């Protein structure tokens, strides 16, 4: 086995991820067992992977990252404008007043919806002052029902202002002992957007899945998770979430 091929094909990385076919795995073991160069690479890679996993877990245990509250400013500006309209409307006793009132009541309803969304977001935004360094990480818990359910999902994912990378950290059920998982991402119409197999959990209780933010539009989604073992699969739960901009 020569080193050029080992490096070019990322064989040490694939070995650590258990992604090598068994024949290649055995041959690579027989090579690296006495090869200091490959052993150095294996150890360095494993150490880096372990640190990345710990970093990911540490990030997911914090509140959801700060999102600049442009929405809040918009909402307050809107509220001010709505109030001005209200005052102005009070001075008018013409037919326009009724039209204005109708429009105002529609605007107020929208405003209330915006406020509710903002309240939920602000709870999550909390006091984290640090800007995010790398990726947005969103913990998701198991939910009942799918994206078509009337109840809004408790899980929220906020898209970054510029396209980037999102990590969805799925809280695994206590009973899950599967090393491999399958996750199917569907939109609110049930269209399969992504079907990922052989996912390995980053720790005993979480499974991290990364997506490009550009894959999502605001709306409701659901990830159906299955545990995989010996060619069989077992449903573990659904993770409904709402994507917000």
């Amino acid at each position, binding site marked *: *086995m*020569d080193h*050029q*091929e080992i*490096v*070019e*094909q*990322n*064989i040490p*990385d694939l*070995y*650590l*991820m258990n*992604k*090598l*076919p068994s024949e*290649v795995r*055995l*041959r*690579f*073991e*027989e*090579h*690296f*067992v*006495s*090869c*200091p160069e490959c*052993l150095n*690479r*294996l*150890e*360095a*890679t494993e*150490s*880096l*992977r*372990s*640190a*990345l*996993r*710990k*970093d*990911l877990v*540490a990030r997911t245990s914090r509140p959801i990252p700060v999102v600049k509250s442009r929405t809040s400013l918009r909402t307050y500006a809107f509220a001010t404008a709505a109030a001005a309209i209200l005052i102005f409307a009070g001075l008018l006793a013409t037919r326009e007043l009724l039209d204005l009132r109708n429009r105002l009541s529609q605007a107020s309803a929208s405003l209330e919806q915006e406020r509710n969304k903002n309240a939920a977001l602000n709870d999550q935004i909390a006091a984290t002052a640090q800007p995010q*360094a*790398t*990726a947005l990480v969103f913990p998701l818990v198991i939910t009942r029902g799918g994206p078509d359910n009337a109840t809004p999902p408790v899980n929220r994912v906020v898209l970054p202002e510029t396209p*980037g*990378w999102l*990590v969805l950290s799925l809280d695994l059920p206590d009973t899950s002992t599967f*090393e491999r998982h399958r996750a199917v991402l569907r939109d609110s119409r049930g269209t399969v957007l992504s079907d990922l197999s*052989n*996912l*390995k959990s*980053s720790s005993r209780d979480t499974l*991290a*899945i*990364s997506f*490009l933010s550009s894959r999502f539009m605001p709306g409701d989604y659901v990830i159906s998770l299955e545990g995989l073992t010996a060619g069989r699969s077992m449903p573990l739960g659904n993770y409904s979430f709402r994507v917000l901009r």
Partner: protein
Amino acid sequence: MTLGPQRESGTSDEAELVSKIRAGDIAAEEEFVARYRRGILVILRRSSEARDAADDLCQDTLRIAVESIRRGELSDPDRLSGFVCGIARNLILNYGRRAARRETLADNEEMDSLAAARPPTQLDALLRSEQIQTVRKVLDELPSDRDRELLYRFYIAEEEKKSICEDLGVSDLHFNRILFRARERYRLLYEKYLRKRSEK
């Protein structure tokens, strides 16, 4: 995936080492242990069955290998590495079978062994925190968000290299370069931290 042939220099080294051990050369046995110990440990620690007993099984592998070579049981000295790996794999299988039998132990014994497991110490927490800080430093030093994304998607989300390269518009070469730099930078920073700690 195909892999190239074995290194010729490596095979002749192995044959020479085997002949010295068969001749009773103690220094050759020590060299054998020094050369193979690390690799055997990696194999044992990667196995889900024998991970906990890796150190003990490593000693057993080395002992059995040396004794077999002394007795002339290794028919093809050029296959020394394969022979050593074979012993390690057999020990893993045997250990797995024994462990399966042990699973029938009474519940209280199992609880005792669980209770005896060492809780994380302050040092563990410190090392963990340092690992996180080190890896964040490495991530911050990467020149672009794309490189950071690549690292996470490959090592954590375990996505296929090909799809990552296509998504991010990077070449194979650039992909490998990013992994190499991140790995080396992390190793240097973390080793520096460990050296500092041991000097204190």
